[in-house]
């Protein structure tokens, strides 16, 4: 597992730009990002190069920010690879709270899905047949 950043955003023009501005000035790199939105607000979820530094910087700017433990599963960058991962989880009766995927320049990890699972601790004990990445992924991405 590793730390994902979770930021509360009101639906207001320029609010995401405020976040990226804050991260840019702290020289924090963004690996992946997704937004879950409702009519009034959104939750910005991000994988960043230095989560602790990012939290401190965003808090400083009065953002409501927390971290959440997520897992990453590397897939091949080819048709059907995500489906394989999801089929595996379905077999094990593991359900997903949310997920988002991204590709990278890294040779080994060129296609990654980030997952937050229901009852994650227990789910992780059940998982077999797929490789799960934690902090080591972040280290690799930061190097490449």
């Amino acid at each position, binding site marked *: 597992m590793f730390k*994902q950043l*979770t930021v*509360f955003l009101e639906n207001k023009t320029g609010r995401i730009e405020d976040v990226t501005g804050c991260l840019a000035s702290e020289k924090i790199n963004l690996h992946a990002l997704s937004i879950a939105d409702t009519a009034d607000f959104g*939750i910005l*979820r991000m994988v960043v190069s230095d989560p602790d530094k990012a939290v401190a910087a965003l808090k400083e700017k*009065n*953002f*409501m920010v*927390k971290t959440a433990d997520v897992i990453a599963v590397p897939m091949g960058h080819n048709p059907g690879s995500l489906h394989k991962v999801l089929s595996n989880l379905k077999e094990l009766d593991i359900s997903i709270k949310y997920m988002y995927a991204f590709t990278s320049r890294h040779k080994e990890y060129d296609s990654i899905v980030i997952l*937050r699972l229901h009852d994650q601790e227990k789910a992780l004990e059940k998982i077999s047949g797929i490789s799960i990445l934690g902090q080591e992924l972040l280290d690799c991405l930061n190097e490449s």
Partner: protein
Amino acid sequence: MEKFWNKHVETMNREQIRETQFDKLKALVTNIYTNVPYYRDKMQVLGIYPGDIKTLDDLSSLPFTTKQDLRDTYPFGLFAVPMEQIVRLHASSGTTGKPTVVGYTRRDIEMWEECMARCLAMEGADKSSRVQVSYGYGLFTGGLGAHYGAEKMGAVTIPASSGNTQRQIMMMIDFGVTHLCCTPSYAMNIAEVMQEMGHTKDDFKLISGCFGAEPWSDSMRSEIENRLGLHAYDIYGLSEIMGPSVSHECRYQNGLHIWEDNFIAEITNPDTGLPVKPGESGDLVITTINKEGFPLIRYKTRDICTLNYEPCGCGRTHVRMSKPAGRTDDMLIIRGVNVFPSQIESVLLSISEIQPHYQIIVDRINNSDTLTIEIEIDESIFSDDIKGIEDFQKTAGNKINSVLGINAKIRLVEPKSIPRSEGKAKRVIDRRSLNV
């Protein structure tokens, strides 16, 4: 020609009014001293006894009654008759879920009907009229209050209650409604929907409207009159006394006649409690001298107005109060419902571990009052899980609804986004402009 429901009473001279007020006041004070321990204790503390009421002016020696007294005696502590004599209860929302309860005897209901019939007659209604009552029916006093008066008058009374505006308009047209009773904002809503439905005011047979339960401006009056093609009159009342028909405008529309054979009105300085000089504005204080079930002595309405004893062109001799110009407390009137910010605060406290920073925003959108509560999100509410946050919004909305009886939109905002003045957040923003 001026129409009256009870011309003899409505036009009796000032001396007669004062005489009848004095007689009823004396009887009332003896009655409550004997039958309501709470009042008796308050009088004894001040050293006032029924025998001390020797003139009408001695009223000012009696203690005030406040909303707090009503809360302290919940539910029936201020009732002056045995429960067997009570035939109806009305209630309004309270601060912590406990409402204010008012009980009526058969005779109280009859007095209320009479007052309401007088109000409707003042607008030109009579038994040939068709009166649609579009105030909410239920514990709220508006619906049943107006209903019984219209029925007493012998008018065709249509208990439409509130909501389903298209059907309301259909009935108004098809039934040939001549008089409409509702809140002024609902009248505006009817005008909007009427237009959307492709009707014009000429499709109505409306003569007048009896609008109350919330403050409204003269410009709103003109707009309602123009759009619905009727004369719009202000009616005043409060749930603690009997809802609509404590006072009402005559066609001169220069103040609302208070039925002084039933109520004694005073204006006092809200800070000192002392009477103001004649014509000055202050807190309207009402003593109900003709109620059996739930009489009130010197009740502080918290509505700010003036009294005018000058003779009126309509021939009625009963004093006129000006349209209330505000409140001496922080009470808001939203869609006719009385709301205290403290009620909202206590709900928020009950669902959050720490008192969140919040702001109450009242607005009028499409002529309907809206209540939005902005809450600054904090650690205890926020997580990466949208459902958890939405559940909080839902819980807060439901609780507010169950305490206040009206819907509120809960909007979560970012930390420190609600402006603070001297460290304290400004709690209420009322964007409804009454002067525009």
